[in-house]
Structures are given as structure tokens and as C-alpha cells.
């Protein structure tokens, strides 16, 4: 009766439901979709899924604090617009090594700063997260378009493109990146002091404050990590395409990321942060997109399918609460 392993093995529809959905989609594709069981298909899906997964992991942390970040798509655009500007500049042409480093570091720093801005608004000024992040949602992409004069920037820079097209042990580089980030964040959530504080703040902010936790710092931290990861995802998108269009990078990414987090078992009211769940959610969303596309169904229909997935995930969460 008091077997402690009971608690771990309890059925959790929020998570197991997603696993079942994944199996169903895979089975469906193996039977119906032509050429599904091929390495090329795997590579395409991994590289597409990676950006969703990276942003979704950051989103998971923010949602775990009881917040939400609508600005991730805009931050991706900002970072994605900055990178080519930097390595196409005269300075970078003269110092390729330094230029490459700067074109990765500077956009990520700018993204982190966006996170500080979001986090400060939410935790120090008490602005509702949805409103606070709406500011950058609108102005971030605008700024990116101003920086590039609304032009499409195309480039050929093999070193930078490695981010999006490189292979390690035969698999896309960004797939490994997702795995590495997931391992680090899982450690952070389950083992680190910050992770514990994050779950406590999201679970009951007043109680966390009463217990002496640095509530503001923890919230800012979550938004900073989320924005930083969004910046990184923006760089990957640009690297995949060898082109940067500020109007399109990360468009509607906030919805994909939120959907992936929720499908992965994150509670919208906060207090839980299943990092690998977010990856699972990202995989499901990517596969649904791919399935519809590969079977010749219009992109718009994919949006409806995504909505259905979110509804199913939220329904399962409600069931889980008993």
C-alpha cells in the first residue's frame, strides 16, 4: 500500500496520451504516406522539429511560472535579421572568424535582453504576461524589418549555415542541439535550486514569497532563458534557408511552441515543467504538419489540425486533474 514506486508509475494521460498520439501518427504515416520510412524524411523532420522544440522548451519554463511568452516569434525574427547583417558587414568580411562569432553571440545577447525586458515588465511592474510580451510580439518583428529595410537578405556562408545544415554522426546538427539543451534544462528543472524555485513560484507564488524565494529573479530568469532559446532558433531558421526574411522568420512560432508545451503536459496554470514532454509535443506537431503536407493537403488545414491537437491535450489535462 505504501509502496513509493506507485507514485512514479501512476498513469498520467497528459504524458501517455501524447505518446499514444505519436504512435498513431507514425503508424498512419508508415501505411499511407509514400516514402515515409526513409532517412531523408527523418532528416527533414528533425531539422524542422528542432526549432519548434528549442522554443517550446523555453516556453515550458515560462508557462511553469504561470506566465506565457508571445514574443518568441518576433525575437526569432530579430535574431535572424541581425545575424546576416553582422557577417555581411565590412568588418566581418575582413575578419571572418570574429565576424562569425559575433554573428552568433550578438543576436543571442539581443534575444537575452528581450527576455530581461519581458521579465522585468512581468515581475517588477506586475504587467500581465500576455500583455507584457505582446509589446515585443509587435515591435520586435517591426524592428527586425526596419533593420533590414524589409529586404530579403540572401547569403552564402557555409560556416554559419552549419547551424542549420550540418551533420553530426549522420544526423542533423540541430537535432543534437535539441538533445543537449533538453539534457541541460532537465537537470536545471529537476536538480538545481533555480529549477525548484521555478516550480514553486509557478505552483503558488504567494507561498513561494512567504518561504523567502527570490520570486522576481526566478521569473526574469525564465523569460531570459525562453528569449535566448528563441534567438538561437531564429539563427537556425536563417541558417537552414541561407536567407533571412524578417517578415517570415518565426511567424506563428509562439502558437506552435505553446501547443507543443501543452501537448507535452505543461499545465497552463503553472507549477510543472516537463522538458522532454515539450520535445514530444514538438515532434507531434511537426509530424502532423508533415503528414498533411506529404499527402497533398493544404497548409491551412494543418492549422485546424493543430487546433484539434491542442484541444485534445487540454481535455486530457482536465481529465488528469480528476
Amino acid at each position, binding site marked *: *500500500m505504501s509502496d513509493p514506486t506507485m*507514485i512514479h508509475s501512476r498513469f498520467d494521460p497528459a504524458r501517455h496520451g501524447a505518446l499514444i498520439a505519436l504512435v498513431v501518427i507514425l503508424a498512419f504515416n508508415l501505411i499511407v504516406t509514400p516514402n515515409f520510412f526513409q532517412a531523408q524524411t527523418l532528416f527533414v523532420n528533425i531539422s524542422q522539429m528542432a526549432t519548434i522544440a528549442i522554443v517550446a522548451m523555453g516556453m515550458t519554463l515560462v508557462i511553469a511560472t504561470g506566465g506565457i511568452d508571445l514574443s518568441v516569434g518576433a525575437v526569432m525574427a530579430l535574431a535572424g535579421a541581425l545575424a546576416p547583417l553582422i557577417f555581411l558587414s565590412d568588418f566581418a568580411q575582413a575578419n571572418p572568424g570574429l565576424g562569425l562569432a559575433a554573428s552568433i553571440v550578438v543576436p543571442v545577447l539581443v534575444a537575452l535582453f528581450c527576455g530581461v525586458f519581458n521579465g522585468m515588465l512581468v515581475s517588477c511592474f506586475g504587467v500581465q504576461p500576455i500583455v507584457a510580451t505582446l509589446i515585443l510580439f509587435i515591435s520586435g518583428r517591426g524592428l527586425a524589418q526596419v533593420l533590414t529595410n524589409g529586404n530579403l537578405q540572401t547569403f552564402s556562408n557555409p560556416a554559419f549555415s552549419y547551424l542549420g545544415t550540418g551533420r553530426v554522426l549522420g544526423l542533423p546538427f540541430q537535432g543534437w542541439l535539441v538533445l543537449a539543451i533538453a539534457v541541460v534544462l532537465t537537470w536545471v528543472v529537476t536538480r538545481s535550486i533555480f529549477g525548484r524555485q521555478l516550480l514553486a513560484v509557478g505552483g503558488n507564488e504567494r507561498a513561494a514569497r512567504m518561504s523567502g524565494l527570490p520570486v522576481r529573479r526566478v521569473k526574469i530568469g525564465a523569460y531570459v532563458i525562453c528569449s535566448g532559446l528563441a534567438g538561437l532558433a531564429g539563427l537556425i531558421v536563417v541558417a537552414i534557408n541561407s536567407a533571412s526574411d524578417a517578415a517570415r522568420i518565426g511567424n506563428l512560432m509562439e502558437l506552435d511552441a505553446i501547443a507543443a508545451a501543452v501537448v507535452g503536459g505543461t499545465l497552463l496554470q503553472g507549477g*510543472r515543467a516537463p522538458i522532454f514532454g515539450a520535445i514530444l509535443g514538438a515532434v507531434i506537431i511537426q509530424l502532423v504538419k508533415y503528414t498533411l503536407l506529404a499527402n497533398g493537403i493544404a497548409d491551412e488545414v494543418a492549422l485546424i489540425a493543430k487546433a484539434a491537437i491542442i484541444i485534445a491535450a487540454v481535455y486530457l489535462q482536465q481529465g488528469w486533474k*480528476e
Partner: protein
Amino acid sequence: MTDLIEMTGIGKSFAGVAALRDASLSIRPGEVHAIIGQNGAGKSTLIKILTGVYRRDAGVVRMSGHDLAIAGPREAQDAGIATIYQELSLVPLRSVTENVIMGYEPRSRLGLIDWKAAHARTRQILTRFGVDIDVTLPLGRYSTAIQQLVVIARAVSLNARLVIMDEATSSLDDQEIETLFSVVRGLKDDGVAVLYISHFLDELYRICDRVTVMRDGRTVATHDVAGTTKLGLITEMLGRDAGEIQAAGLTALSGGTSEPGRTLLQADGLRTRTGLRGIALDIRQGEIVGLGGLLGSGRTEAARALFGLDPLTGGAVHHHDGVALDSPAKAIAQRIGFLTEDRKVDGIIPHLSVRENITLAILPKLRKAGAIDRLRERQIAQHYITALQIKTAGMEQPIRELSGGNQQKVLLARWLALDPEILILDEPTRGVDVGAKFEIQSIIRDQVAKGLAVLLISSEFEELVEGADRIVVLQDGRSVAELHNPGVTQDALINAIAHHHDKGAAA
């Protein structure tokens, strides 16, 4: 006569831990029936099965002889079962009428809500309870008691045959309780059965006909209230010997003999925007300082100010180390703990485990290379689970699954783990059953004997009078008197509060 409700052989487990085994309950039409038992005895679970919140694993539920299958609150209402919870489930910003008729609005021929009829019906219902208010005003404008009556009115308007009251009186004052009781008697006269859940045994003797006693998920006995004694009921609830309970006294806080040590904390002329207008008190090592006063006299506000939660607008708090206590984090760094009154709102982190809840305030001390020292964390959690006899399936069980008394023990463990110098206890035994209350009180007394200083806030005069070495009496945000034990009686305390109250009113 057929029983209105008949529950037999009810079983229910959560995560493999049995909350109910072979529990039963029978309610006759038109009777006031009480359920008593310690926290964790299974009262709430049994009621939630009756109202369709939980599904039972085993057993039968019948209503007037027919099998009853209820899957949610709406179905319960339609079956004639209405529940009035401790926390009111109303919409404070909408009018009284809207709250009463919500979901069952009278319609005009066009299909719109017929407001005239709705207001008239609401007025008529409320008049039956002797409540005469403007039903078009937002409900939130009225007192808790009125709001509670509105919930009951709503229940009756839905032709309830059974009204369940869960700790209905816990937020009412004496006069409001009186009104509530007369309503209960009125319901009874109309043939409506009332199921009454309360931690206050005195209330049971005033309005209940029969009582069902539960212990460890089982129904121990059902009696006619007239044939029972308070001591007999407590004995059945605890499953302990009557003599043992009598010998232990009314509270386990009494019996301390230690001499108080040096002054740890001293407050002068505290003023805040939350209503403090001059509080002076000091806390010394190894003593319990009580804060006495009526609701709204500033007891909790004083505690919050000392803990650095509310900024001071005047006065000062002197800590013996000379540190300014202007945030909970700083107070905690000086080993001050604050067990808050409302454990759901200010205490537990529901999704986290018992272990994580226990160690929340000592996280900085568990830091090992940026991570949490998991081995030490487990040792500490296990130590307090054993020492405080916390009933849990294991330290990994989410705290929300524990009963109220056990949640309170986990929160006490959170502060004891800090090895506190000063512990502020705001209603530490409220909403906790008799057994857990004794345990919590004796744990506190043990700690005080070892040098802990306690600031105790309690609405139970017994607890203050028997437990505190000194009682600082507050009134309207000011400290007005100080009583010293031994020698303080409940009458003396009441006098002190009342006397200064009169003076305050005259001035």
C-alpha cells in the same frame, strides 16, 4: 421510513492509499446529521463521492431507496443535493438575484431572462430566511454570513432535499452563526435534511439530531446526539482512552516552565498601511508570546509586518543582530519562520511533493555546486515525516493529496527545518482535528523548551490562555495591554479585550 440517503460499503483509494474502506452513512428525511472525525478520517472523501466529485471504487449509494449515479455537481443539484462549501462558490461581482437564479433563470416569452420575475422570486426566497436586502446589488457588498445564506437560498430554490454544509460556520461570528442555525431549523421543519460537517463539537449539540463518527476511512458509529457526551465522541474519533484525553488537558501547549532568555526581537510603534497604528511588543528566547484581540484588531497584520511582508510607515523592528527585516527572505535568513493562517493560499505548493514542500525555506542551505544536495534533502524530509508523524504514502507524494492536518504538519516541518530562532504561528491549529491539534501543540511546546521563541496568534482563547507566557492584547491596530501567565484566565483575557474596546469606543 426509508432513509433519504443510504451509503454502504463505500471504498475509495488514491494512488494506492485507501481513503475509505467500508464506510457507510444513512440520513433520514428532515434530520440534521453531523459527520465528525479527525482530518484524514475520510469525511470529505465520503461527501465528495455523494456529490459526484469523486467516483467510488466500491459500495452502493441510494437515495430514497433508488440507486443513485451522480457524475457531477449539476447532476447532484438536479437530484436534490446541494452543497455549501467552506469557500463560497459564488460570483461576488454579480447581483444577489443573478447568484440565486444562476443556471435556472426564468425566461420571458422572447427567451430572454425575465428580470422582474427573477428579482421577485429571489426576494421571496430570501424573506423566508428573514433576510431583507436589495437583491439588485452585487453580492460582494454583503457580509460572509449573508453570502452564505444566499447560497443556502439558492439550494432551497432548487428544491434541495439534502443540504450539505462543509465547515459552514468557520468564517462567521456568533450572531451570524445564530442566524444560520435558525435557517437550519427552518429547513428541517420543511422536511429538508441537512448534513453538517464541523470541527466544533459544541455546535453539534445545538442543532444536530444524529451524528456519524468516522476514523481511518471507516464509519465507527452513528448515534442520536442526545445520548452522547463530548468526551465519548472525542474518544471514538481518536480511538483513544477517555481517561488519557482528560489527563492531557484541553491544549497541549500548557506546561512550559522554562525561564525566558534574552530579547530576540523588539518592535516599537509599528504603523503600516494595512491598519497598524502603534504596536509595541518584544519576543524573548524560550517563551510563547500570544497576540490576543478580536478579528480585525491587527494580529495577522502585526505578524506580517514583523516578517517583512508589509512595509512599515512608522516605528521600527529591532532584531538582536541589528539586521533590517524588510523582506521574508531576510527574516528567514535570520531564522524567523511564519506559519500562515491560510495554508492553501500562502502555504502549500500543491504540485510539489511532501519532500519539496518541507525543504522549500531551506533551499539556500541545501546548495551543493549549484544543485540541490538530494541526499541531505531526503534525510531532512524523512526526519520530519517521522518526527511529526506525517501521514503520507511517501515523501514523493504531492502535498495536495494529504489531508488538512497533515498538510499543516508539513508546513510546520518546513519552518522547523530552518532550525528557527523565532516562529510566528498564525492560527496553527485552525481547521485541524483534535488529534493533530494535540500533536502540533506538543511539538511546539517541545521546541520552546529548547529555546525557540514563538509569537502565537489564535482565535481560540483556550489556546492563548493556556499556551502563552504573555499575551499582548491588540485593538484597532494598537497594542493596548499585556497579560502575564501564570494567572491569566479566559475571563481576564476577554475583560482585557472588552475593557479597552469600550474605552476605545468612548474616545
